[in-house]
């Protein structure tokens, strides 16, 4: 057996695909591979292969891939300086991509026209990043020192009050003014970093000793992701940090395995989309809903097919996306849990929520569920759990999406803009109610109840609930709540 042979030790060479699959899945426990990955050259080769796998998925922009390649390459060459490289890369990332979504970028490009052309949208954005870093440092300093009084004892509430105040001022000043041009980008950069800043502040109460200045600079990790931070904060990352060369090698091998799995899922996703949308005549669910709303309803069988296919394609999309980001985090030396873990195995709504988008669920639980559970309705456990769940899946879920999309308030009528969020309100409410009922019911079936009762029936319920809930999962404003409800009813011939 050569040094790079990935066969399980002590076994004969086999051509069986299952044998090779087992060998591949055990590379992070194969001592020869670990020894190779621990070496300087092995680390470099591993990083190179990893970046090639990321590129093969075609799910990342060239700029993001370039930054990841440079960062991981430097980490492979200078493993002892991983933290410094992480800080510099993340600062570069927030400078290159300060907004999570295009709506904010487009708005800032428009607003920049009110300023001298020498500044431009890039100058305006860079200024906003610096201001947000200063706000973050000031805010964390106030919380740490306690000088902010009662308000800073509840850092999330304090941050929300400050952010909404800034939003209100930005909405109040004349649209074409210099003040408007300066304020909106700050609101946008801040909301892009809002939740990681919340985690950083929460971290300061724990054991993590990362200096405040570094926390303020770590606004968006270079591995990207949504506004829900994958990897949460320094305190969380440090719990999963590789502490020696062997642990680092194992963590990086796990990263490669996850990236390859994401590549496999990308292939399945591509085939699924081709089969559903180009061969079977189905359409994306959103298109089916809009067609129905505009009087050009598609046949019932197409609507049903589109609804079901949308569920599975959505699972594949979120899995690929999350696996790639978690893989980059692991490649950086932090063996954090996966974002999506076999969601089809979920036997209850709350289990699905945990398996589908772990870090978003964690955000809602950390900042809404636990605080509410710890404080309210302590005399009645059922009501206590229900209220905390409503705060997380209902209020928190809606606030997260609403705050992210507030660029729409930069122009147009306030009431009309608020109406954009009607489906999101309904979605959050139904999700919260569903989760409360799911938790109240508890674990209803045991293995002894049989295969159908234990495995099949609960999973079918979960799939059905989220399939239909997806009809209302909209933040675009296209298709009103009534139109979406009408589409749902039309599936049953109503």
């Amino acid at each position, binding site marked *: 057996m050569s040094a790079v042979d990935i066969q399980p030790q002590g076994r004969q060479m086999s051509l069986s695909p299952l044998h090779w699959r087992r060998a591949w899945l055990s590379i992070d426990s194969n001592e020869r591979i670990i020894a190779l990955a621990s070496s300087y050259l092995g680390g470099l080769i591993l990083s190179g292969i990893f970046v090639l796998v990321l590129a093969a998925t075609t799910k990342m922009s060239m700029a993001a891939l370039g930054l990841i390649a440079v960062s991981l390459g430097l980490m492979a060459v200078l493993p002892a300086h991983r933290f410094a490289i992480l800080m510099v890369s993340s600062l570069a990332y927030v400078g290159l991509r300060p907004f999570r979504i295009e709506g904010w970028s487009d708005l800032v490009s428009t607003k920049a026209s009110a300023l001298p052309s020498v500044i431009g949208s890039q100058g305006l954005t860079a200024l906003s990043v610096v201001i947000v870093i200063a706000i973050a440092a000031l805010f964390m300093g106030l919380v740490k020192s306690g000088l902010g009084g009662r308000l800073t004892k509840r850092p999330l509430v304090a941050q929300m009050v400050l952010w909404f105040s800034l939003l209100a001022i930005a909405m109040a000043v004349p649209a074409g003014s210099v003040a408007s041009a300066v304020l909106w980008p700050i609101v946008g950069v801040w909301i892009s970093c809002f939740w990681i800043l919340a985690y950083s502040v929460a971290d300061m109460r724990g054991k993590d000793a990362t200096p405040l200045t570094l926390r303020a600079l770590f606004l968006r990790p270079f591995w990207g992701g949504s506004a829900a931070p994958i990897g949460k904060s320094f305190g*969380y990352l440090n719990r*999963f940090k590789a502490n020696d060369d062997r642990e680092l090698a194992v963590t990086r091998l796990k990263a490669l395995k996850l990236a390859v799995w994401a590549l496999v899922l990308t292939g399945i996703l591509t085939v699924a989309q081709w089969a559903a949308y180009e061969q079977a005549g189905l359409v994306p669910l959103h298109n089916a809903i809009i067609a129905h709303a505009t009087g050009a309803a598609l046949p019932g069988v197409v609507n049903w097919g589109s609804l079901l296919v949308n569920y599975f394609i959505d699972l594949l999309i979120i899995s690929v996306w999350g696996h790639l980001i978690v893989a980059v985090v692991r490649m950086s030396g932090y063996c954090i849990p996966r974002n999506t873990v076999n969601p089809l195995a979920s036997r209850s709504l*709350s289990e699905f929520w*945990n398996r589908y988008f772990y870090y978003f669920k964690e955000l809602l639980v950390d900042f809404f569920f*636990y605080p509410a559970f*710890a404080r309210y309705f302590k005399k009645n*456990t059922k009501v206590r*759990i229900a209220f905390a769940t409503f705060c997380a899946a209902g209020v928190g879920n809606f606030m997260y999406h609403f705050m992210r999309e507030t660029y729409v308030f930069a122009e147009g009528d306030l009431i009309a803009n608020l109406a954009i969020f009607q489906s999101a309100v309904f979605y959050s409410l139904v999700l919260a109610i569903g989760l409360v009922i799911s*938790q109240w019911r508890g674990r209803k079936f045991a293995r002894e109840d049989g295969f159908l009762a234990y495995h099949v029936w609960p999973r079918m319920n979960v799939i059905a609930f989220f399939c239909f809930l997806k009809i209302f999962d909209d933040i675009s404003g296209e298709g009103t709540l009534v139109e979406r409800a009408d589409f749902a009813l039309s599936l049953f011939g109503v």
Partner: protein
Amino acid sequence: MTDSPIRSFVEQLLSERGKSTDIAHSDPLFTSGLLDSMAATELMLHLEAEHGVDLADADFDISRLDSMADLEVFLSQAA
């Protein structure tokens, strides 16, 4: 701490969820995904009922209950 009541309770939570009860003193329970938020609520209820802990403290953070070692420190501070 091997046979402490709180360890027994955590092991019961793990066992009910089909997880191994063979956990080290410093193994993360919640941040690792080993236990979910519903298990956390059960643990919080247990701490309130059996140990008289008030979790409404503004400084409360679930990471303070994240391992057997954390729980030991938390309970000694709350005592």
